[in-house]
């Protein structure tokens, strides 16, 4: 008899076999500590900060519970920031969904073998390069001296670009100094996060659902509306959670591309830095959390997570 079997009750594996609850605990403890202390802890600290206020005279944080900081959110200028960010996030999300769907549909239903690999590569590759590099690259592309203006001139549609830039609010001196530019860059940067979940959802729609629908008399258009779209919706919602929340929180793109009007992210960045108003910065950070909370509740009501 070998040494290992002389003690039939020895060994760590045997111990865990008999106490499977302890194994679960041992496996879960590190991630639980991480999510509990580092992750939720810092969120809680943030929430706590938002209930403090800044002494306007001394510029010091007053560690007393108050709602005055939240009250500051409702001043006209701060409400504008929130509205601007939410509208941008919503428009970026809708545009991403519209752009992503056909791409995801092609990849899920028609691309095979090498084409599928190419699709994944094309969608994922932009994620491998630095975010900042991509944003600065876009600044150059969108600039007055950039390739878009140049191409528009060559194609004799410079007037179209000028007309676009002349539109009030969203226009500007050039694409890279307008909301249109900010919007384009947001859509470019977040698009993969919309394509991938949409594609995954479409992939899960079995081919014979489409055949069954046709068999029951539905034209391709009807099948798309009544079968494919409802079944892909959870994926689109999942993608929109990414595009929406990432846009709500981003503070770099609006600083580099756009007309320098503040978004929530840039406001937080300025408040916690130069202004030193940590409580208001914290209160601002709570806004996207609340907006996302509402958004997820509505999405859940719509059954977006039924298929998960």
């Amino acid at each position, binding site marked *: 008899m070998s040494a290992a079997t002389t003690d039939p009750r020895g060994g760590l594996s045997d111990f865990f076999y008999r106490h499977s609850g302890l194994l679960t605990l041992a496996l879960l403890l590190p991630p639980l500590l991480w999510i509990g202390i580092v992750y939720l802890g810092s969120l809680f600290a943030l929430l706590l900060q938002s209930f403090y206020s800044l002494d306007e005279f001394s510029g010091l944080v007053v560690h007393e519970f108050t709602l005055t900081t939240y009250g500051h959110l409702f001043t006209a200028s701060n409400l504008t920031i929130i509205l601007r960010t939410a509208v941008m996030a919503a428009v970026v999300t809708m545009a991403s969904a519209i752009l992503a769907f056909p791409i995801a549909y092609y990849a899920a239903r028609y691309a095979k073998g090498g084409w599928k690999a190419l699709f994944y590569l094309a969608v994922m590759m932009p994620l491998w390069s630095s975010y900042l590099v991509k944003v600065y690259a876009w600044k150059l592309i969108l600039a007055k001296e950039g390739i878009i203006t140049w191409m528009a001139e060559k194609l004799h549609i410079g007037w179209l670009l000028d007309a676009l830039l002349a539109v009030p609010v969203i226009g500007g001196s050039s694409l890279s100094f307008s909301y249109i530019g900010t919007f384009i860059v947001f859509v470019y940067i977040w698009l993969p996060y919309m394509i991938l979940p949409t594609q995954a959802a479409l992939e899960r729609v*079995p081919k*014979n*659902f489409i*055949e*069954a*629908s*046709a*068999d*029951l*008399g*539905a*034209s391709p258009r*009807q099948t798309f509306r*009544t*079968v494919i779209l*409802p*079944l892909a919706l959870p994926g689109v919602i999942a993608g929109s959670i990414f595009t929406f929340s990432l846009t709500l929180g981003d503070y770099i793109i609006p600083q580099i591309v756009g007309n320098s009007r503040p978004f929530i992210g840039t406001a937080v960045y300025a408040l916690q830095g130069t202004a030193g108003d940590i409580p208001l910065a914290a209160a601002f950070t709570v806004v996207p959390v609340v907006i996302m909370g509402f958004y997820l509740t509505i999405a859940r009501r719509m*059954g977006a997570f*039924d*298929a998960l």
Partner: protein
Amino acid sequence: MPAAVSFQHVSRHFGQVKAVDDVSLDIARGEFFAMLGPSGSGKTTCLRLIAGFEQPTSGHIEIFGETAEGLPPYKRNVNTVFQDYALFPHMTVGENVAYGLMIKGVSRPEREAKALDALAMVKLRGFEQRRPSQLSGGQRQRVALARALVNQPKVLLLDEPLGALDLKLREQMQEELKALQKQLGITFVFVTHDQGEALSMANRVAIFNDGRIVQAGSPADVYERPRSRFVADFVGSSNVLPPDFAAAHGGTRAWTSLRPEKIRIVSPDEALPSGQFGIMGRVASVNYQGAMTRVAVDANGTRIAAALPAGLTAIQEGETVTLAWSADNLVAMDAA
């Protein structure tokens, strides 16, 4: 009156693969027609050609006298019960059944009433608010059936519809399908690899192999008179006797099929009755199967299987026995 479904020299090739190869067949109105064959034999492709999911590479298909080539599935008055049912998971059972009617633009109260009737027909009344995921396999199968039948198709196509069910349920559904077909008078075209199912349910069976129909006829006909070794083997089990052996034991000089249940065992002291032929051999194995006992006998190097009614004989392995059959149980076949 044109046939319900008519194939004239229909082929469907996928690259080099001839999934369906020059198939001609006529399915009569009101017939319960089974397409039987091993997987990859072309039977499912034939069904998909009728449904319109596939287009023939060559040949001509008619459904109730109308040319079917080029007609998309949604313009054919044919409905399918899919192998894995393909119920829409985002709809209730009632919505699933009413789907075809909704697409046709039938008003909500009318299609709901019709869906309820269809569900009642498959004994699932009261399930209309459930989701397909809340149903058992047998129930889903019934929903798929109701969803197809509610459209009153001219031809109902069933693609291995009972394949996923357990034995008891399958036997029950076989009965119900048969009764339903009789009651509705709709032409049923049924694809299966289960020969027992095909024999028990269909009026007529077509046996497929390698994209071709190798034999078609009534269940009794294909079972009793297999025309080829493939059919003899695939439909039930059979002893395929070589020409010389057959000629020496009551048959003609041709490859010959002898069904195991047609063989009797005669005790050594008993004389063979007139008109009977037999051979002595050693029992190689005895396989008790409840209703019958299968015995394999080694007769001068030829292995012969016999199926004996249960409880009739207590035969031991290694014993020497005489197998007997009458000449008309020997069925000469065209090809080996």
